[in-house]
């Protein structure tokens, strides 16, 4: 994979990955914002309202028509959090020109993207009122709808409890209590602030070469120099002295158990690759200790896994169980963490864990979205490792490194969703 990164304008970086094996070209534009209570709901609402209409395409139907006509081009805006940064992302995907006789396809698609991003529909100094009201109501349903997916809800709730004094607790789609106070003018002012001051990174994956892409994108998207306000991550936090045990009653068939750990290992630390390997050996798939003990040996669950939250230096274990067996499950999990701490890890487990991670890293290269996402997650952390470099660091991890990780990890919060009534 060849990546070229360049500051193409004040406040805007372009990162191109030139590959010609895909049927599509993808252009990803990331706006970086701090994740803070007073802005979280504004950020979430923006991509929603921006996709409702712009000056040239006055409603979502006209936007949809244009995208369909361009052989099913895709333009999607959404929001996510990376540590205490709140990221607005717009992705444009178009069919590569080798497959169609449509030389103007890219020009038209970029024009549409420019319109949606930079020429919103404005009425009396604010966003269009009807669109605004509809999208506020849609956002309200979305926030309330968090409960529909029980697995995700349980994970989010565990983080909320674990990080209750940190901004990371905030749900990426915002807070219900903010919706009343927002109005079309305030939202538009927030939009202008982002457009003018937010760091922009553009990740392009496709057949175009960097130099060519650079001039083309600046011209077609009408990009200009901007004075940006940097966004930074806060300090890492240690686990609380006393274990925080939370349970929430909900009448569901299967209980959801989430365990939240503080790792105290930053993504920039030399030990970070060992943390990834630790989590893989413990709960990274069908080769892992938790899968074998909790599922295969004890039949306590169908799914169980652990995962590392890169920017937050925490690790989560998630499983679906019978609520009556929560204590038993916790004990089995604790035993496995203890095994890790005692160094009861075979060379085979280490090798299997390494193979699994390395395969996943190498496989990124076959999916343009994964390539863009990997690239941006290096950029946003201001710490760049190419997939090859990361794979090499994984290969070099020793048993001692894993033991060092094991001694640094501490359980902070347990969260159980379900009911013991049945």
């Amino acid at each position: 994979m060849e990546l070229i990164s360049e500051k193409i304008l004040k406040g805007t970086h372009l990162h191109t990955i030139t590959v010609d094996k895909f049927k599509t070209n993808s252009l990803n534009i990331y706006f970086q914002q701090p994740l803070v209570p007073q802005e979280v709901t504004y950020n979430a609402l923006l991509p929603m309202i921006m996709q409702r209409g712009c000056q040239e395409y006055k409603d979502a139907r006209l936007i949809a028509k244009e995208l369909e006509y361009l052989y099913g081009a895709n333009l999607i805006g959404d929001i996510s959090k990376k540590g205490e940064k709140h990221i607005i992302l717009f992705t444009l995907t178009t069919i590569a020109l080798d497959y169609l006789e449509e030389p103007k396809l890219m020009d038209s698609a970029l024009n549409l993207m420019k319109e949606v991003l930079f020429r919103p529909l404005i009425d009396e100094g604010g966003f269009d009122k009807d669109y605004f009201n509809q999208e506020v109501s849609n956002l309200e349903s979305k926030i309330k709808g968090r409960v529909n997916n029980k697995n995700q809800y349980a994970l989010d709730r565990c983080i909320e409890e674990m990080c209750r004094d940190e901004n990371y607790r905030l749900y990426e789609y915002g807070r219900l209590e903010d919706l009343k106070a927002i109005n079309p003018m305030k939202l538009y002012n927030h939009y202008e602030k982002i457009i003018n001051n937010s760091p922009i990174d553009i990740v392009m994956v496709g057949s175009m070469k960097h130099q060519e892409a650079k001039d083309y994108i600046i011209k077609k998207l009408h990009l200009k120099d901007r004075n940006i306000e940097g966004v930074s991550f806060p300090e890492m936090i240690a686990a609380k002295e006393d274990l925080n045990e939370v349970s929430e009653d909900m009448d569901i068939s299967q209980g959801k158990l989430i365990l939240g750990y503080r790792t105290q290992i930053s993504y920039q630390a030399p030990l970070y690759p060992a943390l990834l390997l630790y989590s893989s050996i413990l709960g990274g798939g069908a080769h892992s200790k938790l899968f074998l003990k909790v599922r295969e040996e004890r039949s306590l669950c169908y799914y169980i896994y652990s995962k590392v939250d890169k920017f937050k230096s925490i690790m989560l274990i998630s499983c679906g169980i019978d609520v009556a067996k929560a204590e038993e499950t916790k004990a089995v999990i604790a035993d496995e963490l203890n095994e890790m701490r005692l160094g009861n890890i075979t060379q085979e487990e280490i090798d299997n864990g390494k193979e699994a991670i390395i395969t996943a890293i190498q496989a990124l290269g076959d999916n343009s979205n994964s390539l863009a996402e990997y690239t941006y997650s290096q950029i946003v952390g201001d710490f760049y490792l190419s997939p090859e470099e990361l794979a090499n660091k994984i290969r070099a991890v020793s048993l001692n490194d894993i033991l060092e990780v094991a001694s640094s990890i501490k359980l902070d919060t347990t969260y159980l969703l379900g009911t013991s009534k049945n």
Partner: protein
Amino acid sequence: MQYDKIIGEAVKEVLYRGKFQNGLEVFFLPKKGYIKKFALFATKFGSNDLVFNRLHDTKVIEVPEGIAHFLEHKMFESQEGNVFDKFAPLGASVNAYTNFNVTAYYFTATNNFYENLKLLISFVQNPYFTDENVEKEKGIITQEIKMYQDNPQWKVFFNLLKAMYHKHPVRIDIAGTEESINRITKEDLYQCYNTFYHPSNMVLFIAGDLEKDKLFNEIEMSFDDQGSKEISSIVRHYPAEATHVKNSLVEEKMIVSTPLFYLGYKEKEIPYDHTNFLKHEAIIRVLLDMVFGRSSDLYEDLYQKGLIDQSFNFDYVRELDYGHSIINGNSRDPHKVKETINNWILNRKKIGLKEEDFIRIKRKQIGENISFYNSIEYIGNSFVGYHFKGLNFMDYLQALKEVTYQDIHQSFINHFSEDLQVLSVINP
């Protein structure tokens, strides 16, 4: 092994096909520049296959609901232990799925491809069921069933199928029920295995940057050390299914914030021949997009009224023995959604759909089909599903290109019939 070449000109892909003495067909899609390799070994055996006999054996066998899925779980057990453990040192990610008509085992790997492939072929051909390991699996699958019971999307979908079909087994949950899986024995599993896991009822699909002669040779060698089994056709028995729907409305309460709905249209049988089957599917897919897609005035109307949100979607399923289209989403008032849709369709049937919409949607779906070829997993899974229907997924693009505005018009009149409509709702 002999193989021939199928050319997909519009997508600039080539597919190689080989066939073994034992009846197994092998397909290879070369993907230059891809790091991942993907192999999928599938059998035409899904949750719908509950009553069957072999051609030369008149005894009809009936097995418990959920057995195809149970068998899929149990194939990961071998005499030497867990199959996952064998793949792990090779860095492959191995998994499987069962749907209504297919059980598929697959891996993706970046290294050690041929060792992984050998393992895949070997573990799927060597069942190892004991009373003890069958018993152990019941706890795991019970948790899987419970996970789905808490999933409102899954619930609203199966409630729809249960209301739409009187007897066809597509109305039964793929994993079965706690009760039905508890009746499964190792004898049942061997019975199904011996019937459906014969190479002549299976297909092997491979994609990646591989050398085709070496690949076909290696596969041949993997099968060489296996004694050849006699080929015997399978007769599947499905109960006669009435044309009309069982219930037109089904509602249930669950823990959700807003109601979820699935609105389905049951389809009448269509005459099967290779060319018209794919074209029929393409017609209905274009039609659904014209009526319910993001650019339709019906979608705009529903969205403006706050009756639907971004989750609104639609899909079409056409199997040999059944078919239905589904429109789904979240709504504060699903009944109002249905009423709005029905009025719109009634009205539009009088004046017809617009040709400019047809042209645009067709362009959109051509682009979509081309982009599917980015994902070797997607192509593999789709290819195998169509293959078991006697179709080639690579022909779909051509079928789509042949769809005319007149085809759409005729199907619009036929497909959306209110007496073949079912509404399934999950209420808070």
